[in-house]
């Protein structure tokens, strides 16, 4: 049983979250991490050509997407959004199948690189590789809801490097003009591949830019899923009240290299890389949950056993799925199958 006083101190209850909810959030983080780690193993084993990771971002992604309504709201993610897309409904098997580029992978049927998430069935917009384009899609979805007068909220996420793209400015400005129901999430891990924040962002803050667009910009500790949830819940409520967008800048760490084709030891001090582990959101959150009496050794053991089984099963099932049929490579260029 959770210690009442210490559990109160975690701060989730006053946000309307139960002990079960925060445990479910923790499980979601663990699951995303475990799938992510499995993808690296499979990449090292030669089964997967490329991996781009969300490790270190899970606390922010789970906390921020948690208030979103899966059946109604939309997400335009980015390539590190593994825990976000899983919170929106993607399964471990979906992620494995996408990395293996299987023919029935929900994101692209094996057409896109790993990390290019998207699925209509989960209200997740298909993502491309030029960074920042998805932010305008989220704004367009929000514009659609605004034109129709319905209650959808769109969320989009991107890194601090991407925050400098012109399309981000165009998107935020337009959303600010019409108070569109959209939540902008900048997951700031301090590095755009090899280029540090100080060489990417004049003023060092992405959140502060929101002032110029006429909506709130908040900075949160992205290793704290409860704080992230609180910021996103408020943003979601604002959007639903017709008060417009919010920009959330979540400070996170990138625990891996940019991708499997990168080696961050070439441009980061090894001591700095080692120190990142202290900001890993998973043990940080686990310790707080333990302190609150919500997480115990027995629960931890149970969760890890469940997740291991889930991933093993997802891997077996994902690998057993059919590869793309080359004879289908010309399909879905246009809606008409027949093209002169």
């Amino acid at each position, binding site marked *: 049983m959770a210690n009442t006083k210490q559990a109160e101190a975690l701060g989730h209850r006053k946000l309307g979250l139960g002990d079960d909810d925060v445990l479910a959030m923790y499980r979601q983080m663990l699951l995303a991490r475990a799938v992510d780690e499995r993808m690296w193993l499979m990449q090292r084993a030669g089964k997967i050509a490329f991996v781009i990771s969300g490790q270190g971002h899970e606390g922010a992604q789970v906390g921020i997407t948690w208030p979103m309504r899966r059946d109604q709201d939309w997400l335009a993610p980015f390539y590190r959004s593994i825990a976000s897309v899983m919170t929106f409904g993607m399964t471990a098997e979906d992620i494995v199948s996408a990395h293996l580029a299987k023919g029935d992978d929900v994101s692209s*049927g094996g057409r896109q690189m790993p990390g290019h998430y998207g699925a209509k069935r989960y209200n997740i917009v298909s993502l491309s590789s*030029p960074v920042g*384009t998805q932010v305008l899609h989220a*704004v*367009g979805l929000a514009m659609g809801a605004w*034109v129709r007068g319905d209650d959808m909220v769109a969320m989009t996420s991107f890194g601090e490097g991407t925050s400098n793209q012109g399309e981000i400015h165009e998107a935020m400005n337009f959303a600010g003009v019409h108070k569109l129901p959209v939540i902008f999430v900048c997951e700031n891990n301090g590095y755009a591949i090899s280029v540090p924040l100080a060489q990417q962002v004049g003023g060092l803050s992405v959140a502060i830019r929101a002032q110029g667009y006429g909506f709130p910009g908040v900075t949160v500790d992205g290793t704290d899923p409860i704080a992230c949830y609180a910021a996103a819940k408020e943003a979601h409520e604002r959007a639903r009240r017709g008060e417009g967008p919010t920009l959330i800048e979540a400070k996170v760490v990138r625990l891996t290299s940019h991708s499997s084709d990168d080696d961050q030891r070439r441009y980061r001090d090894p001591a700095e890389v080692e120190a990142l582990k202290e900001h890993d959101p998973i043990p940080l959150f686990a310790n707080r949950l333990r302190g609150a009496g919500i997480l115990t050794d027995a629960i931890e053991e149970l969760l890890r056993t469940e997740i291991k089984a889930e991933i093993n099963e997802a891997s077996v099932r994902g690998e057993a799925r059919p590869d793309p049929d080359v004879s289908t490579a010309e399909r*879905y260029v246009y809606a008409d199958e027949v093209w002169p």
Partner: protein
Amino acid sequence: MTELNILEAIRIAMDEELERDPNVMLLGEDVGRKGGVFGATEGLFAKYGGKRVLDTPLTEAMIAGAAAGAAIYGLRPIAEMQFADFSYPAFNQIVSEISRMRYRSNGTFGLPMVIRMPYGGGVHGALYHSQSNETYFTSTVGLKVVAPGTPADAKGLLKAAVRDPDPVMFFEHKKTYRLFKADVPDGDHVVPIGLADVARSGKHLSIFCYGYMRFCALEAAETLAREDGLEAEVVDLRTLRPLDTAAVLASVAHTGRALVVHEANRFGGFGAEVAAFIGEAGFESLDAPVTRLAGPEVPGVPFHHSLEDWFMLNPAKIVEAARALAAY
């Protein structure tokens, strides 16, 4: 039937589509209160309100990208690039996103949307209000590209574009907006995308054209018939992608000579595709080399009227090219 110019036909098409389907919306710079810089959306803001006829900030990437997002949400946006020349900030959205969305999502996400592209010179717009940049888009797989040359086609093709499940680039030659009036069928007149129109039949040579060049080619054909006794067949392609290859081959089989005319520059222009296609698939019909008459190889239409006149294609230049081809 009602006599309309192309601008009026475009406005009526949008009005009728807005009326027919609540998911249709317009967005672009000055399309609302002002009614568009050319007047194409005049009266629609008052009739449908500022959400469905939406004045955007001066941000072309946003216009295209937000239209794409709205299309994902089930709307049918008609986005206006104020001038085709200004569409380049939106190029990333159009080429990376809009054209590829269906393919990259394995058929899950389609984008039913139209991007209106007022293009072409002869309007004293110089380098940046005169471009014919259709080739960037005809070479992009996943887009459809339409360029009407009559009021009836402008109305019918725009309606077809709005209803199409795929993104359509809709090229409107600015010089044709008020150039002439012609009969337009009343009511729900839809012209299918992908079909050329034989604007005038003839047996001596084929002139393949689109947009404003249809008007010029028809005038040229009159002159050729009157002064030379040459019967030119004028084939208005109307849709550039997908190209009506059957109509192209049928005409070449009929005449044995092909002249492709467009205002965009020659090198790598749309005429190169038409010529290559005829060379590959219609070679045995040919009595002469396929010939192109195109805009000059300069980076844009220069401003002074004498320079602009030098740049622009016109009926006289088409007559000259046709005579040379007929004499081969």
